[in-house]
């Protein structure tokens, strides 16, 4: 049976798939994706993929034209979206041959949409860590890169999670308490404080903060039930804060936790967020991004499991690959 990708503007249908699929996060929610489109100037293509007349999955694609080229993304850059890409329905229940045939059909139909109908020169997808099979992309000549995350199983209870921490992390938490750091839950408005701290940290490192504050505020307002803000104060002053996303049985540390003079405060805030998550029935504490050596060393103190995910990209032609190389050079070394 033939596969085809179709644009759908049925938000309810889209969100039903987001709930049903094992490859989704809060990022896949229709409202989040529309905010990206409205706020950040990317064109959103909400693709539903059908096998015959049966929907088998969704694939949110964004595009933007620049310098005579059209670029397609899932997710687009500077949106704070860690992964997006395809979300399949009933995937885990299928046998491997059916799984592969559906995934292959889905990827091929989206590839055709992006390069033939949309006329894109470049397409990048960061797939869900729950989707381990990227062979259909390989067979279509995509470049595959690895992305790493951490996930901590907190279903075994607060005490066991605490015992699993590296000794250094436990000591740091105790020191933070002794030094008078106080933990509290924040309000959506506190995103501004966390943002400013991150911006300051980026500046210290000679980097620009490219994510937009008004976009973050809108996301926090829109998902106020699913987004939790944790703060750490000393003498009434916020010294650090993190923003976490709650989705299904996991809570994901999203942004914040900028390195500051308040030594040990970040250890405390993660521990308090983990405790809060345990008390509120979550099973997993997810930490996006474990692929940077320095950050991985901090995050691994909590004894999480490593999760491998994939980033896939394809260029229409070799000169687009060269252009990307020049762009990266500018971004990384000239801070353009």
């Amino acid at each position, binding site marked *: 049976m033939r596969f085809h990708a179709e644009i759908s503007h049925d938000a309810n249908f889209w969100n039903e798939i987001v709930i049903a699929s094992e490859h989704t996060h809060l990022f896949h929610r229709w409202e989040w994706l529309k905010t990206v489109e409205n706020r950040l100037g990317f064109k959103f293509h909400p693709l539903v993929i059908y096998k015959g007349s049966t929907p088998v999955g969704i694939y949110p694609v964004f595009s933007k034209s620049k310098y005579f080229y059209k670029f397609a993304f899932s997710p687009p850059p500077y949106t704070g979206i860690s992964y997006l890409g395809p979300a399949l329905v009933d995937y885990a229940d299928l046998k*491997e*041959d059916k799984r592969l045939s559906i995934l292959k059909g889905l990827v091929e139909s989206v590839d055709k949409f992006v390069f033939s109908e949309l006329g894109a020169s470049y397409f990048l997808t960061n797939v869900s860590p729950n989707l381990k099979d990227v062979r259909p992309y390989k067979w279509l000549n995509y*470049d595959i890169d690895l992305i790493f995350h951490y996930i901590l199983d907190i279903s075994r209870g607060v005490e066991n999670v605490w015992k699993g921490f*590296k000794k250094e992390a436990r000591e740091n938490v105790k020191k933070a308490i002794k030094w008078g750091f106080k933990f509290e839950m924040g309000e959506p408005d506190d995103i501004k404080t966390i943002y400013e701290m991150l911006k300051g940290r980026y500046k210290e490192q000679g980097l620009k903060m490219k994510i937009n504050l008004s976009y973050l505020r809108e996301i926090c307002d829109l998902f106020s039930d699913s987004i939790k803000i944790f703060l750490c104060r000393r003498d009434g002053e916020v010294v650090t804060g993190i923003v976490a996303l709650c989705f299904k049985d996991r809570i994901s540390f999203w942004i914040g936790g900028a390195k500051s003079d308040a030594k040990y405060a970040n250890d405390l805030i993660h521990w308090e967020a983990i405790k809060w998550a345990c008390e509120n029935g979550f099973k997993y504490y997810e930490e996006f991004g474990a692929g940077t050596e320095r950050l991985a060393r901090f995050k691994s103190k909590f004894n999480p499991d490593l999760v491998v995910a994939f980033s896939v990209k394809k260029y229409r032609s*070799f000169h687009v690959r060269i252009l990307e190389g020049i762009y990266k050079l500018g971004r990384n070394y000239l801070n353009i």
Partner: protein
Amino acid sequence: MNVEIVESKEIWNSILDRSSNGTLFHDLEWLKISARYATKNFLGKRVPCKFYPLVVFKGEEPIGALPAFMFKHAGIKLLLSPPHGVENYYLGPLFVEFPNAKRSKIERYFLDFWKAIDEYVATNFSPSYILIHTSPGILDARPFKWCGYYVEPRYTYVVDLNRRLEDVWLQLSRSLRRDIKKAWKIFEIRSAKLEDLSALYDIMRKRGRIHCSLDYLGEIFKTFNKNIVAFVAEFEGEVVSGIVNLIYRNRVQFWIGLPRVDLPTSPNGSLLWSSIEWAKAQGYGVYEIMSAEEYELFPFKSKFNANLEIYFSVRKFGAFARILSCIREVVKGDEVPR
């Protein structure tokens, strides 16, 4: 951490025994045989290799190893693991288990281990190109990336045998079960004898499905006869296909065999099923259908509905090789994989 070339079987095997990602290909005897037969086609010339059993010590304690094979020709040096021409899908580093250590410590050790190997290789061999296919079981590929390697996932299929054989059978696709039953009526499936090997080899050679020498296979069979179980399919008294399985630890692996058969019905599904049945009867926990990569073979292999297991292809270019590779991509044109 320091790196040494270690010829001691005792040290090598102590690492292999303590490494959860160890395979039969990592056995020192297997590696030495591979080194004698491995060749690489270099600008029209068959080039042999030199084997370096690199061991990493933390203080006095060996914590990991890399079987490295070096091919040199016309100023170009390739460091491969596994080497070419010996039909190994993967090999790469061995890394011992630290059962009582926390993950952060294990991650640290693995990073230091790989940095030590990378530095040793660069200083002592300065290869133009390094290509390693790790064995399944190494999930933390970050140290490779952090040392400047390109890393890509590769896949193999594993059938969980800790279930009733009936359940494994029902997991097979309906069309495959039908084909297997049909093949039972047409072919005689039996255990292979040593003399069947050359018949199977000839068929595979004709189909372009094998790239090693018969002598190499013969020596592997002789040395590892306790680790090998093979079956052949006969049609009208003639061997038309076969399968060679390797046995190691709790796992039986389809290694080589199953060439295309020019008959209306293929015996290959039933040969693979016979191997699974045998592995289950002998009490093994896992049957591996090696390599789930080839696009041409996936319709057959995926019908066994096995689980995917990931391993990694890890490569690094020297400056000259990087330039050559870029030129190749420009010449080759659009949408080439890296």
